[in-house]
């Protein structure tokens, strides 16, 4: 964890304990494939946040790519896919 400096108390801010933040950061850490596989002892919070941002960006890119692919597939296949969709709806 990065060194604990005294937090500047600004008026009107909510008091969040360090433990709460640590807890949430470690929960995030579990979701990130990069850090989970690395198995390093201590990962700094800033590192976790950075990996989180990168991971979310890559997921967004994947969604973009899949959306493009799906719209192309919709445009190219015929009315047969309406039947496919109906069958999927039934099975799900």
């Amino acid at each position: 964890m990065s060194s604990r400096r005294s937090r500047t108390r600004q008026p009107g801010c909510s008091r969040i304990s360090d433990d709460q933040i640590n807890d949430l950061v470690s929960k995030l850490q579990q979701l990130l494939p990069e850090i989970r596989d690395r198995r390093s002892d201590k990962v700094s919070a800033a590192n976790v946040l950075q990996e989180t941002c990168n991971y979310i960006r890559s997921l967004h890119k994947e969604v973009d790519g899949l959306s493009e692919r799906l719209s192309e597939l919709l445009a190219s296949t015929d009315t047969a896919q309406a039947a496919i969709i109906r069958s999927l709806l039934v099975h799900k």
Partner: protein
Amino acid sequence: MNPRRSISSNPASTVKSRFTNGFLKALLRINRQRITSTTAYTPREIFRGYLRVKIAADVSMASAIGSRRAWSRAMLRKVRSHGRDGAQVRRMSFLAMRKRNLYGKKIKCVEEDVGCYQANVLRKLVPGGAAMDMCCLLGETAHYIKCLNTQVKVMRRIAEVFST
């Protein structure tokens, strides 16, 4: 283990199945609109098609979560406020919003020891993140990542089925 992800006896109650149903219905709607349109193959129409699918995916996921989470509420608010018609309106709004964020909105950072800059970057990525405090932001981010993973899995599966 997140109970929402487990296979319950009533399959319609999982987030994944709600998202899949909603998204497939949206795809059907999009396809019907495309069939009736005469200019289906211009580059502009192709872009609109991609955008419609992307928005359908995001909205279906946010709807599957409903109002339980701040990020899903923020996303649904954003889409509804841009109106139902006009992918062009949405496209311009997305670009305008991105520009506004770049030329700064200075977001006050209170929690200095948790990577202030990264927290601000994260706020731009998570829907509704600008208004959240650190604690809320981290919790919402974790849930948002789980849902994005589900979204990607389902979309991949649908693309596989379509391409066979």
